[in-house]
């Protein structure tokens, strides 16, 4: 009896805590939408207030009448809001109102005295909040919250079930025989105090069992349901909570990339596969992904510089990706055959990202290319919504021995060695005009570009590649330029920002450096253009992919260099040493003083092309776009390294995005433009297992201190892992202690719970029945003496005589009868009972009846 209220109180307290946590977690799932960012705060506030002041401290509780009035007011308010909004479109706003309604009702519920109905309503509202949040928050945080919320919710429901059954068997205070008002109960009354206590006691253990056993089973079944569900439409996205990333358009202002660098949001994920070996392709050095190619520099009335793309009028402006090059191109050179798959976060621009030279490799019709720029775009009207994450594959010949080649042929090569280059089929006039556009330079507004470039020609050179390299070196190292994102310096009126950069400030971001180099190249007659995109060297070892973030946004330069000036092996790799045959004929001198077409690819004569074709191993091309990156240090912002934890988190994030949010039809594809899907995930998991294997080897050998290494000092990861293992072992031991699982190996028959069997000695059995009426029952393993000692303490009352002596007398008599003469067990029923034992039983009976008559009626919950 003594521990019954304590057990009931613990059950109720745990129930309250679980539901308060579930309320908080479910409201936090709404946090992805900035328009309703206060709702989680409100919900958490009222959940904590309700838990502490209503449930635990019991300082106050909202009366049911006040609660109904509040709910009515909330309903009126919501209806008014809906009416103002209209019942038409505006889905997001309506869902926000629904979320608001749910949170307000939850707040009212939390302030009420809890009963079964309130708990059930709280559970329903948590579930509804999850549904609403699922519509406008599909971020990974939702998935992260879903797991603990599921565990807490399951444990809360288990506690609620124990609470319900214990309430249903809650005993009446006493079984008196006074006529009750209800006819159906006129003659029979029942109570089972032990049952309620048993439900309460084991109800405290059930949540742990539910969490351990039920959660994996539910997750498994839910996965089967989710992935087995037939779908006919591609998955839609809910807009990332309004956070569409800034993409690249065909108009980029100076400083725009600098603002992008302030965010570390993930922009795209690049997976490279070695087609021959069917494994992830490992690269060295930064990976350049071009998003837009900009040819025209403008300065507006506010002296703000910007780059825009030329309005390309040729038919090739939008075309399918070129076919894969011929066999010689792939096999004859050490160019690696790489398959690229890019997963692009929702962006607000049409630009896709590419690694040129690319070719068709399962790329769907929704992705088109501009061959003269080597860029990819969404084809309008195909269904690639900018609000959706998309994945598109293509093939790339841009890598050699793990390094991205800086030379890109101007036109895509033909499909085989015999076919002419696609450039031969193009309009030579348009191509020449494009080259002329890449030479436009306003020497009046930006005279410093020409002046500084001319200073680099103190030692004349006929090699445009050499000159471009000098300019790049000048901007990067020797010119005294400084990379900075702080562009708060004073702008000089009437001065072009690039002129100010080159002449005065010499401080700027990658856009300033690249723009300056483009203009310096153009001032010397070398066609050049600005390329914006991402340059990343972040590689997720666990997932086996490169990650490009907003802070990896970058601008660099491409200069059109005649193939004659490019050593053949340099076209493949910067690391290869030039051969004697590949040395450029120094007699061909570039006329740097007169900008023109003399040094440009389209202006070379036929003999030169033939020579070049013989030398080049990429047939049919006569010039190359050569990448220069004049930004000191490669630019960008150093991202704080999160190590393996970040890798795991991001891998999980992508898993969530790929296999939950963007999960598509039952064919197993994700949201992709591809017709066929490469087996990338298999490789990812292989990569993951290889990583684990490698780490285990490092662990065994002492390692290098990064990761699980324990041989060279303290490792946080190892410490956390050890802590997690210790906690797991502790929980398992606790579970064993509570006998919660009923595992066959640890079953003990003697560990049965509940009241033990009644003794056969009649007078002692009567005594125990009396004690059972006030909830004192003998548990298995408890001796009669222990039981009566506990009963004497429990039945102690200040105004009454102690029952210690009568109970001891009865116990001694029981021992005497039971063990002195075993045969007497059967005969005692017919023996007269000594008067002292009768008196002892009477005293116990009187005390029990006194307690029963004074017990208050239990609170009945409706």
């Amino acid at each position, binding site marked *: 009896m003594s521990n019954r209220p304590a057990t009931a109180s613990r059950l109720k307290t745990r129930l309250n805590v679980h539901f308060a946590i579930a309320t908080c977690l479910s409201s936090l799932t709404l946090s992805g939408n900035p328009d309703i960012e206060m709702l989680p705060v409100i919900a958490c506030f009222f959940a904590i207030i309700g838990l502490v002041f209503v449930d635990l401290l019991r300082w106050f509780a909202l009366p049911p009448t006040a609660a109904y009035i509040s709910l009515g007011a909330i309903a009126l308010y919501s209806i008014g809001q809906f009416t103002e909004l209209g019942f038409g479109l505006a889905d997001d706003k309506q869902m926000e109102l629904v979320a608001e309604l749910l949170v307000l009702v939850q707040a009212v519920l939390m302030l009420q005295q809890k009963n079964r109905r309130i708990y*059930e309503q709280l559970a329903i509202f948590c*579930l509804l909040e*999850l549904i609403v949040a*699922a519509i406008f928050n599909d971020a990974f945080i939702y998935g992260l919250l*879903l797991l603990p919320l*599921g565990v807490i919710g*399951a444990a809360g*429901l*288990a506690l609620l*079930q*124990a609470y*319900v*059954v214990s309430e*249903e*068997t809650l005993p009446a205070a006493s079984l008196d025989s006074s*006529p009750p008002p209800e*006819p*159906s109960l*006129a*003659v029979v*009354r*029942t109570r*089972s105090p*032990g*049952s309620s206590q*048993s*439900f309460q006691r*084991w109800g405290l253990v*059930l949540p742990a*069992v539910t969490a351990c056993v*039920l959660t994996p089973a*539910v*997750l498994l*079944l*839910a996965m089967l*349901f*989710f992935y087995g*569900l037939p779908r006919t*439409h591609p998955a*839609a996205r809910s807009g990332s909570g309004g956070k569409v990333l800034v993409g690249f358009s065909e108009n980029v202002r100076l400083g725009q990339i600098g603002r992008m660098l302030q965010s570390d949001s993930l922009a795209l994920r690049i997976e490279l596969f070695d087609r021959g070996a069917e494994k992830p392709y490992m690269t060295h050095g930064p990976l350049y992904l071009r998003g837009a190619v900009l040819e025209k520099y403008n300065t507006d009335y506010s002296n703000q510089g910007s780059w825009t793309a030329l309005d390309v009028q040729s038919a090739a402006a939008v075309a399918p990706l070129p076919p894969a090059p011929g066999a010689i191109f792939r096999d004859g050179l050490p160019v690696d055959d790489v398959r690229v798959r890019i997963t692009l976060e929702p962006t607000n621009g049409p630009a896709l990202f590419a690694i040129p030279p690319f070719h068709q490799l399962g790329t769907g019709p929704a992705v088109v290319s501009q061959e003269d720029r080597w860029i990819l775009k969404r084809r309008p009207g195909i269904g690639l919504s900018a609000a959706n994450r998309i994945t598109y594959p293509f093939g790339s010949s841009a890598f050699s021995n793990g390094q991205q080649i800086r030379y890109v042929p101007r036109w895509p090569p033909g499909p085989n060695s015999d076919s002419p280059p696609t450039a031969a089929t193009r309009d030579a006039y348009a191509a020449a005009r494009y080259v002329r556009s890449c030479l436009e330079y306003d020497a009046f507004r930006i005279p410093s570009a020409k002046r500084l470039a001319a200073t680099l020609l103190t030692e004349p050179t006929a090699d445009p590649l050499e000159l471009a390299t000098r300019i790049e070196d000048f901007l990067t190292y020797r010119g005294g330029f400084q990379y900075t994102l702080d562009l708060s310096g004073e702008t000089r009126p009437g001065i072009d920002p690039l002129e100010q950069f080159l002449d005065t400030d010499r401080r700027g971001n990658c856009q300033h450096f690249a723009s300056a180099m483009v203009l310096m190249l153009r001032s010397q007659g070398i066609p050049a253009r600005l390329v914006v995109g991402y340059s990343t060297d972040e590689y997720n070892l666990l997932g086996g992919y490169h990650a490009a973030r907003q802070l990896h946004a970058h601008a660099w330069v491409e200069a059109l260099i005649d193939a004659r000036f490019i050593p053949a092996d340099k076209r493949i790799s910067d690391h290869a040493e030039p051969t004697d045959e590949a040395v450029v004929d120094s007699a061909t001198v570039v006329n740097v003083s007169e900008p023109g077409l003399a040094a440009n690819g389209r202006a070379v004569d036929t003999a030169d092309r033939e020579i070049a074709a013989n030398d080049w191993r990429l047939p049919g091309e006569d010039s190359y776009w050569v990448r220069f990156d004049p930004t000191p240090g490669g630019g960008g912002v150093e991202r704080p390294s999160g190590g393996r934890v970040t890798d795991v988190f991001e891998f999980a994030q992508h898993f969530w995005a790929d296999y*939950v949010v*963007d999960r598509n039809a039952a064919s197993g594809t994700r949201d992709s433009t591809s017709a066929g899907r490469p087996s990338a995930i298999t490789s990812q998991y292989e990569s993951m297992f290889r990583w684990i294997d490698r780490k285990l080897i490092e662990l065994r050998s002492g390692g290098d201190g990064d990761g699980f290494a324990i041989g060279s000092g303290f490792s946080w990861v190892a410490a956390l892992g050890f802590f997690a293992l210790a906690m797991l072992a502790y929980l398992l031991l606790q579970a064993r202690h509570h006998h*919660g699982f*009923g595992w*066959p190996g640890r*079953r003990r028959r003697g560990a049965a*719970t*509940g*009241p033990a069997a009644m003794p056969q000695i*009649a007078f002692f059995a*009567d005594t125990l029945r009396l004690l059972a*009426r006030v909830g004192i029952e003998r548990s298995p393993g408890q001796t009669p003496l222990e039981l009566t000692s506990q009963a004497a303490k429990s039945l102690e009352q200040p105004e009454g005589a102690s029952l210690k002596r009568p109970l001891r007398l009865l116990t001694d008599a029981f021992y005497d009868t039971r063990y002195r003469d075993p*045969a007497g067990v059967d*005969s005692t*029923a*017919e*023996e*007269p*009972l000594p008067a002292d034992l*009768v008196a002892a039983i009477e005293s116990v009976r009187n005390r029990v009846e006194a307690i029963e008559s004074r017990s208050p009626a239990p609170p009945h919950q409706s």
Partner: protein
Amino acid sequence: MSDHRSSIHVRLTRLGWQFAFIAVFAMVGGAIRAYNLPLVLAGLVVAALVIQWRWSRQTLLGVKLERRLPDEAFAGEPFTIRFLVTNRSGWLPAWLVRIDDAIGQRPTIGVRSWFRPWRVEQVRGMTTARCGLGVILSRSTLTTSYQCLITRRGRYDFGPATVSTGAPLGLMLASRPEPLPQSLYVFPRLLTLRHRWRNEFPARIGGNATAARRHGGHDGEFFGIRGWRNGDSRRWIHWRTTARIGEPAVRQYEQTRRFDLCVLVDAYLPSGIKPRGVIEPTMEPAEETLEWVISAAATLVMRLGPTPANRIGLVVAGRQTRSQASGGGREQTIAMLRQLTELSGTDAPDLAEAIRQVLRIGGKPRDLIVLSPRPSAAAPNDLFRPFSTSTSCRWLSAADGTLGQLVAQSSAEAPQPMTTDSAGQESV
């Protein structure tokens, strides 16, 4: 087991219906709008429902019930009904097992031929008792119980017992009815005898007292030694004789009967009062008076019957006239209490037949006490003519107050139940 499978009913609880509705809503909405996350939620809820269904159903498949009724029960006295709950499953513990036991009262009159004890829900006044266990580990048996208080005498039917569980999440409730038909006689309420109740009866000490032989040394004088028979306690063995003759021998004692009387209950109920059965919430005053008379008879039987030194006879004259004699045995006392339990009143009790049965079971000298709701004047003049002058015949009536001198109408201080057996000690 196959019967168990077919008899298990699984239904959604209120919370389960709400969850299922939300799951359907999420599924339809997610499918229409092509949102995946609502589908994930729907999958989780559906999975929880499926797991709940299988878990609760599998739990009940392994649970077996056995009810243990008490040996005796008196109206107005709480008694305990026990259930032995066995979990036969080899791996699954049974969580939050609830037992709903139906209790119905078998009509003492107008029993229909189609009546089946396990369909007691058709009986008006049925109620349900609840008890249960938090957990029953696999391959183990536990006991749970509920206390029951029945305020009116009668024969009560127990069953069907419905075992159910909503564990682990309470989204579904699996239940299985177990017929477990059992009946229990709830004997009439025991009342408190007046302080000088013995003065109402002539005690027979020595002299004309009849003798009875019994075993054991409770009281009485040594009578002799006989051979040991099955059922004899080892405490009765006379060891010296046993050692001498080489086979067990037990002692016999001769006891003097203290009370030798016959109780006749006149179950008179005025015409116009239709016996409605004891399940009715209220009773007519005449019915209450009759119940007092019957309870007084039961109290006397309980006080005098179990004592071996007494010889008690009981004749009840109601709609049927029945009799039972007792020589101090427990079974005979219970038989008398059962007759009183099933006694129903009538406006024309056959007292002549009752007297004949008194003489048949009484034999030689026996005192007669008639307990009646009617005054003694209502008794036929020649009612006691068959008895000799040495027989004391008394008519104790509830109407003229003579019954009230014997037994109180209230049961505030009810005597001990038979199991404590303190009555015999007090009676002498």
